[in-house]
């Protein structure tokens, strides 16, 4: 379970060329890429293939496991596939293929950013893009305690299973209230943890503002990357349409 959650976090700790690029540049390039795909209508094969090649280049530079990467991005396919199947049955095969291609390519783009940029760097980049500070702080704390709480819930579930919580002999009402009990205990632990964090913050002089450090300056090669990525994306997007 926690493996499913932790895999991208583990990938993002890598040290490849792509990992070391400035997060702001990667995020900007991703936004241009996503916009280019989203505004494409109707979808044509050469453009999709060209976008696919862009992703492949990024993937190679990032030294991520290719199979795992492609598979990970495929988590969008069940949802997309359902709608694609509906439109294919309705005779709109092209539309169905386009839907799958657009959503899969978009997901791979997001994955490429998330799998090569640690969360703190992503948050710094989002701050640079003027995302509200309060929201970023909430995300920061959410991510900090995500794995800890998920593991805690996993242990609680295990303990409940050991005590036979899944046995069908028990009535539904009984199982419902035991699940609710577990949920409330998890809530209580989370609440107490938040209070502990607040105590630790106050102890270190917190007085209303959470101070953040600033981004390191972007280097020449970061700008070069952003320029190349954006130019290539726009060339693909506009090339066939002019």
């Amino acid at each position, binding site marked *: 379970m926690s493996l499913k959650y932790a895999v991208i976090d583990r990938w993002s700790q890598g040290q490849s060329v792509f990992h070391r690029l400035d997060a702001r540049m990667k995020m900007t390039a991703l936004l241009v890429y996503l916009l280019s795909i989203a*505004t494409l*209508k109707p979808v044509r094969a050469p453009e999709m293939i060209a976008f696919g090649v862009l992703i492949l280049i990024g993937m190679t530079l990032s030294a991520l496991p290719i199979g795992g990467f492609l598979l990970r991005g495929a988590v969008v396919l069940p949802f997309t596939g359902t709608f694609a199947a509906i439109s294919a049955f309705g005779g709109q095969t092209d539309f169905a293929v386009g839907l799958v291609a657009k959503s899969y390519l978009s997901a791979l783009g997001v994955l490429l*950013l998330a799998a090569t940029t640690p969360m703190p760097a992503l948050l710094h980049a989002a701050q640079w893009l003027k995302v509200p500070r309060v929201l970023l702080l909430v995300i920061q704390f959410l991510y900090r305690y995500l794995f800890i709480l998920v593991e805690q819930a996993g242990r609680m579930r295990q303990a409940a299973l050991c005590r036979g919580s899944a046995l069908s002999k028990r009535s539904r009402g009984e199982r419902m209230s035991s699940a609710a009990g*577990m949920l409330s205990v998890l809530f209580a632990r*989370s609440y107490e943890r938040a209070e502990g964090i607040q105590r630790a913050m106050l102890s270190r002089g917190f007085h209303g503002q959470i101070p953040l450090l600033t981004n390191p300056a972007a280097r020449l090669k970061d700008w070069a990357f952003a320029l190349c990525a954006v130019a290539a994306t726009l060339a693909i997007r506009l090339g066939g349409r002019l």
Partner: protein
Amino acid sequence: MHIPDGFLATPVWAAAGAVSVPGVAYCARRAHAVLEEGRIPLMGVMGAFVFAAQMINFPVGVGTSGHLVGGALLAMTLGPASACLVMTAILTVQALLFQDGGVLALGANVLNMALAGVFAGYLPFQLWGGGSRRKLAIWLGGFFSVFVSASLAMTELLLSGIPIPTGVALLSLVLFAISGAMEGAITVAALDALGRLNPSWVRTSQTAGKGGYGALWVGAVLLACVGILIASPLPDGLEKLAESLGIAGRASNLFKSPLSDYEASFVSAAWLRKALAGLAGLLATYLVCLAAGRMIAKRGSKA
């Protein structure tokens, strides 16, 4: 229902973003004013709690089990503005890290789940949560938080021109209602257990016993959702709406002049008309919600 990237037509995700960005900014300001940054750890930890809570299975139906979605529960414990921020944070993490929902589609997903879902989920609780029908109010909140979110998502997909046959759309509505009912049951059970552990964790709703007015408002939310859903598989209806509003004609003229060379290739007139009608629909829904919210707020301040 998390919409991935690649599904929504540009006007739809742009319009949804245009609603959710100021919406979230407003909630951020309110949460900031009411709380201090000292409460931010609590909000973040509660977001992580929602992720963790999804590991707990509730035996809801015949042989099936569901898990907490969380919008209503968060609203009833942290308050709607904080809950909206927490849900937005959850959706962002899901989009970035788990490819659950798209990044450009985040505006739409936030609109559906963090804004509409949370506020629709809080409404019955605010209206009746203090009275004798408290349990029913909590259940309704859970139900709405899921049903309204899912219906809105469906509406956005339809507006984007995803071909969903009317039969499938109606069937989905039934499924949304079922998962809404499950969320309602889970929220009731969870809040009950929470209240027994520490009553101060559950918010107290100040208003009680304004039944008639609340029922109207709740009914309106429901009808708006279902209404849009039923209207949208019928493109004629949408275009008629656009024409009667006088938008389509003028707007396509506006776009025609600078773009007339490419029009055949990517600004297909029918598509644009439909999209603009969709935009108008979203805007109208938004304005209705806003007006209704104002009215409720006025009533609240008088009482």
